[in-house]
């Protein structure tokens, strides 16, 4: 079975990201094993839990969600790139200081750059978008 990983560096409201999702969907349709997607640079913004795009526009975040829930595609975000862009899985709650919150979507896995290395090793091909 052909194996593939994809690196995403474009943000959710960039139309370039639609092309990447389209590519991944076609890879799955062709029977390729999509080992994982790694979000880096401004690409990590795709992992925001609070994206709201107008109903008549392409719902980038819902398409990522669908890739995860319906096709089991692992969506890895680089936490270092996240934090400088306002995304974190360790936000102090102002009311209850003992719990922490996350503004990273539950469909994404918080990872580090080490995961990029893993994906590189585990996949026949790696394509950047």
């Amino acid at each position, binding site marked *: 079975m052909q194996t593939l990983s994809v690196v995403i560096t474009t943000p959710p409201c960039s139309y370039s990201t639609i092309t990447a999702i389209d590519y991944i969907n076609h890879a799955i349709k062709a029977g390729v094993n999509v080992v994982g997607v790694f979000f880096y*640079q401004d690409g990590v913004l795709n992992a925001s839990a609070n994206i709201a795009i107008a109903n008549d526009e392409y719902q980038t975040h819902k398409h990522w969600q669908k890739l995860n829930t319906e096709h089991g595609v692992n969506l890895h975000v680089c936490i270092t790139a996240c934090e400088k862009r306002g995304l974190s899985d360790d936000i102090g709650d102002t009311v209850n200081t003992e719990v922490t919150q996350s503004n990273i979507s539950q469909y994404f896995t918080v990872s580090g750059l080490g995961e990029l*290395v*893993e994906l*590189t*090793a*585990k996949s026949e091909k790696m394509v950047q978008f």
Partner: protein
Amino acid sequence: MSESCKKIAILNASSTINQASKEALDAALIYGSYEQSTSLFFQGEGVRQLISNQQLETVHVKDYLKTMAALAFYDIENIYACKASLVERGLAEGFHLDDVQVLSSDAFSDKLHQHNVILRF
């Protein structure tokens, strides 16, 4: 870490004072720390990252270029610069890194072709 004899190329295309350039270096160092065979390529505006005497602190940017000194520690020894990019910009070969190999466009591309994974930042 699963075994991999892949060769990784990080192709640096952004100018110095640029978050992309810093994040490209971070990625290269991680590949190196996992003992992956990794090479750095500088082309286009990317060649500016190699120039000496830049003073990033002047514009409140942390001098991540200093981190490039760690490349050798991670056995990242193949560092290539595109000669045409340097010439186009009127840049002399006074680099802050030793062992940068300045290559013609053809030779630069030949080296790129020896890698299995190429990421461009």
